[in-house]
């Protein structure tokens, strides 16, 4: 592979965090602990190895299409009443920010000599990104996906199969992302000798949340200087949607030390947080353990995990990344919820205004921004984490239901 002038990405020093305040940790069967220790060691070794960093940055540039543009959304700004910049992760190869994490983790797996990759997917974007990286690196790929998500994200199922991945249907519980993660972890418990689990968000047992953040913080590391160059000042607000929270933490990471920048994470409000049918653990949830980490989790009084509800498969998850839970408690990031209906309206509005069809996930962030024009003379930066082609059938189907019901 040619490396004409690509620079290795700067990576954080020191061991990846195992805790974020009280959150995070490793709540997994004993069998997985040696695999997590190995992953932590190999990640630290890879970060120190210039050839790893160079290969990753070269692929991110020449294969994935980084850096992605920061675009001043003219008509959206007019409609919102203030200047809005979109970080165009929808323009990344495979159509969402997920590829930066998937490429980094599959390169790491390749380096560790693991020839089999497993992943979970909700909306299908992480599954497609992982299947893509596995095709590129000639690795076996199994993607666990809930059968409900397979139904509502049909095009992505076909894409994964075309890329050579095996899509393993998960037909238990709500048949969505939570069950897909559980199925992938069970696979990994038995196969960790030969298999790397490319987790798709900043969730899971340590060191996953820190590794994923380091791989996706390329979003914020690009956006911050782009914004400074465009406006000569930092944004007033940086806004991103939060399911597990990878695009949000990847964006926020570059702005955490800029105290004057307000950070806003937008979760799935589903049918409204007061209905109990939503995917907003940060805005509403108690502390709990899900998928190997202590974080904000939707649960009942006994500690049973409650199913999330969202029109967006990528936000349809009852947990959240542990660093987000900590950022919530410290007050550094504000977490808000946006309903299905408002996200759908923003999906249509932004498509018509900008000629950009956003994925349903960032449509939540767009809806929040348009409803909260803010004050002051500055500007907003919003991470458009993916494109919405995958959502057309679902959106049109819901619209039909509404029309027939009304």
């Amino acid at each position, binding site marked *: 592979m040619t490396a004409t002038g690509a620079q290795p990405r700067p990576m954080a020093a020191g061991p990846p965090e195992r805790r974020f305040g009280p959150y995070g940790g*490793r*709540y997994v*069967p004993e*069998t997985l602990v040696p695999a997590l220790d190995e992953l932590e060691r190999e990640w630290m070794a890879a970060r120190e190895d210039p050839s790893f960093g160079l290969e990753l940055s070269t692929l991110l540039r020449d294969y994935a299409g980084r850096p992605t543009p920061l675009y001043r959304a003219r008509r959206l700004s007019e409609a919102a009443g203030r200047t809005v910049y979109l970080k165009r992760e929808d323009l990344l190869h495979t159509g969402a920010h997920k590829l930066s994490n998937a490429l980094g983790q599959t390169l790491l797996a390749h380096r560790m000599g693991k020839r089999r990759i497993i992943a979970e997917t909700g909306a299908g974007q992480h599954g497609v990104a992982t299947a893509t990286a596995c095709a590129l690196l000639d690795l076996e790929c199994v993607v666990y996906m809930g059968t409900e998500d397979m139904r509502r994200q049909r095009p992505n199922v076909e894409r994964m199969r075309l890329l050579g991945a095996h899509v393993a249907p998960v037909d238990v519980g709500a048949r969505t992302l939570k069950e897909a993660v559980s199925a992938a972890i069970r696979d990994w418990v038995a196969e960790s000798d030969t298999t790397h689990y490319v987790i798709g968000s900043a969730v899971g047992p340590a060191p996953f949340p820190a590794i994923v953040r380091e791989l996706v913080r390329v979003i914020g590391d690009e956006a911050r200087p782009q914004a400074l160059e465009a406006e000569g000042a930092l944004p007033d607000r940086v806004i991103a949607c939060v399911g597990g929270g990878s695009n949000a933490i990847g964006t926020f990471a570059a702005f955490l030390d800029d105290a004057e920048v307000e950070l806003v994470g937008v979760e799935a409000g589903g049918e409204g947080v007061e209905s109990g049918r939503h995917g907003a653990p940060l805005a509403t949830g108690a502390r709990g*353990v899900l998928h190997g980490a202590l974080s904000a989790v939707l649960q009942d009084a*006994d500690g049973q*995990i409650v199913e999330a509800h969202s029109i967006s498969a990528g936000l349809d998850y009852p947990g959240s990344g542990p660093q987000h839970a900590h950022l919530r408690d410290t007050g550094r990031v504000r977490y808000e919820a946006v309903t299905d209906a408002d996200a759908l309206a923003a999906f249509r509005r932004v498509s018509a205004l900008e000629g950009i069809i956003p994925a349903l996930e960032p449509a939540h962030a767009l809806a929040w921004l348009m409803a909260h024009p803010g004050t002051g003379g500055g500007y907003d930066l919003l991470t458009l984490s993916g494109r919405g082609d995958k959502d057309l059938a679902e959106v049109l189907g819901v619209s039909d239901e509404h029309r027939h019901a009304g």
Partner: protein
Amino acid sequence: MSGPDGVTRIAAAFAGHGRRAALMPYLMGGFPDVETSRLAGEACADAGADLIELGIPFSDPLADGPAIHAAATRALAAGATVGEVLGVCRSLSERLPIVLFAYANLALSPAPEAFVERARDAGAAGLIVPDLPHEESEPLREACDAAGLALVALAAPNTPAERMAAIGASARGFVYTVSLAGTTGERGALPEDLAGTLARVRASTDLPVAVGFGISTARQAGEAADMADGVIVGSRVVRAAGEGGPDAVGALVADLAEALA
């Protein structure tokens, strides 16, 4: 609380079974319904079980294979609550020591002390938390120690030596050796390296060493009894509870007890 504490009851069960190894069937509380799971426990006691591992159904059981996962899902769908399963524990604890099997979010929710108090009040002798590895276990162990409950530690075939020593040193009651890398479920044969795994666990602790995961037939149980102080049979017992109720569980446990004679 009157009578011996949980740690003492577990030690007595391992010391006084009169067989090659103690027999510990696993039952899913609330499966197929709460009362039937209690009767299945009575059948275990009648058929010669020395301890019972009583599962509290959880929505996301990461360490469990299809049989126990499905039983948990069915128990929850039938409305089983933690309180009802603790009621089963209270009833059965009059017959033999009960070790609760609870996932971390149940055992830590809302706080370790609160759950341990409920478990103690329900007569539980010990607690197994399959997704609480050594480095996360201290707050719960302190709460268990204060209440006289044994927080049972888990060890696995791939646990490195230094870590095994730390697990053995902090174990209470007995050490639960996971026989294989994988989830619970019936397997065709015991793992080839089981004797080696158990020898490494035994070297790390003075406590009894029990083995579970993948042990389902009387023959496998008999083989395991030559290597371990206790034998845990889970998925096979849960299958019997689902297919034939307490009678089938009693017949199965009687066969297993005979194999350990």
